[in-house]
């Protein structure tokens, strides 16, 4: 039996008396008007607040195990560190509520509205959140292991460092959600939408991501070992440093993806190459010249399709790039008094200074990033160079057209090959 009956509680509230720390186990107050009331540290295990109006109520540190709060109005209620294990909050309105460090293990929150709610460090293991609305909710460091979040709306939610291992995210919407460093091992996320979500460093090993949509998402350095990505969409995703699935991916949809280190869109990979990259079976062998190394007076030739990254100091060197070879001058890379020739794609994050003009001859693409610097002339090929410059780049640059004799030479060469 509770220490106080429902009538006594209401009387106390009306007379302005406090009901904090009271033993109110099994209290039945369905549909009661309790807005702004404080039940701080009360024992409300098994209490019935179905449809009650508890907006802005203070339930901090209260024990509400197995309580019945279905369809209750708990907008902006303070439930910090409350114990709601096994509670029924189906269809409850928890918009803007504070549930930080609350225990919601096994709670039923199906169809509940938790938009903008604070759930940092909350325990939601095995909770039922199917169809719940968690738009803009703060779930950093929350434990959502084995939680049912199918069809839930988690757009713009913050799930940084959250544990979602084994959770059900089927058909859930996580557009623009923050999932940096989140644990998503073994999640079932068939058909889930991660549009423009940030999943940097997240663990997605053995996850089922069939038909999931990662359009524009940042999945750099994500662990996909053993994950299923068949039919997934990854167009425009940032994929640098992904640990691949280890198996071929069927029906991956990707017009292009960004493989640049800093996710600035300066290194695009297309179609089949994206599938190869995400499966960890990329055929492209990268040549890397590391920091601290110095190369002088060298002539280097890279074959068609090669991928080269330079973080070293190159002095008075000549680099010949085969068709569609990629050359990235990293942030620490310096090419002083050098010349680059050939129909390759060049990205400058570091410095390039020419030896003789034109320092860069015939590139199909030239990108100078916000930290890049280029001094010299660029001679475009007959079909022109695709240029991109980011704000912050430094340029002392002459752009020239293809020399007629070189264009003619190329045309003759093309004719012979045909």
């Amino acid at each position, binding site marked *: 039996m509770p220490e106080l009956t429902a009538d006594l509680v209401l009387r106390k509230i009306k007379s302005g008396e406090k009901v904090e720390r009271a033993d109110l186990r099994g209290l039945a107050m369905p549909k009661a008007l309790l807005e702004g009331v404080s039940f701080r540290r009360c024992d409300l295990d098994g209490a019935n607040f179905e449809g009650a109006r508890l907006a802005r109520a203070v339930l901090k540190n209260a024990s509400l195990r197995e309580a019945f709060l279905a369809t209750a109005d708990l907008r902006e209620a303070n439930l910090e560190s409350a114990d709601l294990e096994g509670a029924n909050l189906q269809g409850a309105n928890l918009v803007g509520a504070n549930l930080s460090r609350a225990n919601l293990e096994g709670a039923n929150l199906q169809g509940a509205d938790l938009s903008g709610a604070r759930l940092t460090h909350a325990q939601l293991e095995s909770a039922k959140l199917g169809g719940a609305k968690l738009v803009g909710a703060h779930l950093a460091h929350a434990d959502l292991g084995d939680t049912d979040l199918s069809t839930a709306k988690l757009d713009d939610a913050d799930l940084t460092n959250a544990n979602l291992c084994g959770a059900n995210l089927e058909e859930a919407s996580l557009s623009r959600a923050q999932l940096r460093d989140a644990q998503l091992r073994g999640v079932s996320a068939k058909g889930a939408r991660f549009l423009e979500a940030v999943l940097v460093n997240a663990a997605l090993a053995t996850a089922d991501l069939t038909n999931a949509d990662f359009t524009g998402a940042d999945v750099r350095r994500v662990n996909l070992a053993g994950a299923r990505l068949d039919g997934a969409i990854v167009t425009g995703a940032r994929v640098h440093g992904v640990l691949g699935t280890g198996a071929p991916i069927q029906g991956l949809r990707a017009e292009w993806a960004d493989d640049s280190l800093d996710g600035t869109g300066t290194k695009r990979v297309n179609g089949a190459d994206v599938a190869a990259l995400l499966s960890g079976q990329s055929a492209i062998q990268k040549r890397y010249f590391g920091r601290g190394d110095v190369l002088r007076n060298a002539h280097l030739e890279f074959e068609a399709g090669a991928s080269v990254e330079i973080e070293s100091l190159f002095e008075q060197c000549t680099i010949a790039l085969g068709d569609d070879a990629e050359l990235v001058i990293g942030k620490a890379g310096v090419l002083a008094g050098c010349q680059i020739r050939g129909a390759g794609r060049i990205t400058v994050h570091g410095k390039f200074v020419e030896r003789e003009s034109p320092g860069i001859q015939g590139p199909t693409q030239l990108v100078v990033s916000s930290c890049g*610097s280029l001094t010299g002339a660029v001679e475009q090929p007959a079909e022109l160079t695709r240029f*991109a410059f980011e704000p912050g*780049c430094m*340029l002392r640059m*002459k752009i020239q057209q293809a020399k007629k004799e070189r264009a003619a030479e190329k045309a003759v060469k093309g004719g012979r090959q045909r």
Partner: protein
Amino acid sequence: MTEKDVTPRRKTLVEEGTQFKGSLSSDCPIEVKGRIEGDLTAPALLVSPSGSVHGHVKVGEMRSEGELAGEFDADTVQLSGTVKDNTVIRAKSLEVKLTPLKGKMQVIFGECDLEVGGEQAQKKEGTTRPADVVRPVSVRPPEPAPTSDITPPANGAH
């Protein structure tokens, strides 16, 4: 929505089909849908895809989707469209976006010089700054014209 949001800011517009030769100076942003040949000074310049500017230009901000030729001094430049032969662009900051491989070229560069960042900041002290102050909102031009500005008619078009 506030009144400011719905009322267009004052600007000088050189409408499509209009050709202007000579010196143009304005203390409000200039939008060029037609063609300008000559010197141009303004806090901001927007060259639409149908627009072209040939001459000496000093502006705070410049965004061009049209055709540029001549000498351009600006604080910030966003480029797409065409840059003709013998053009010099000096700016503190330049932005050209990368287009998809099979897409239309973002900028077609002729033979030109780009001087961007670094010392450029000190070289350009005489450049007109962007309008720092929010100007009175009106679709009508100022009266009378302060210098040799083009003042657009009531409908804003020439």
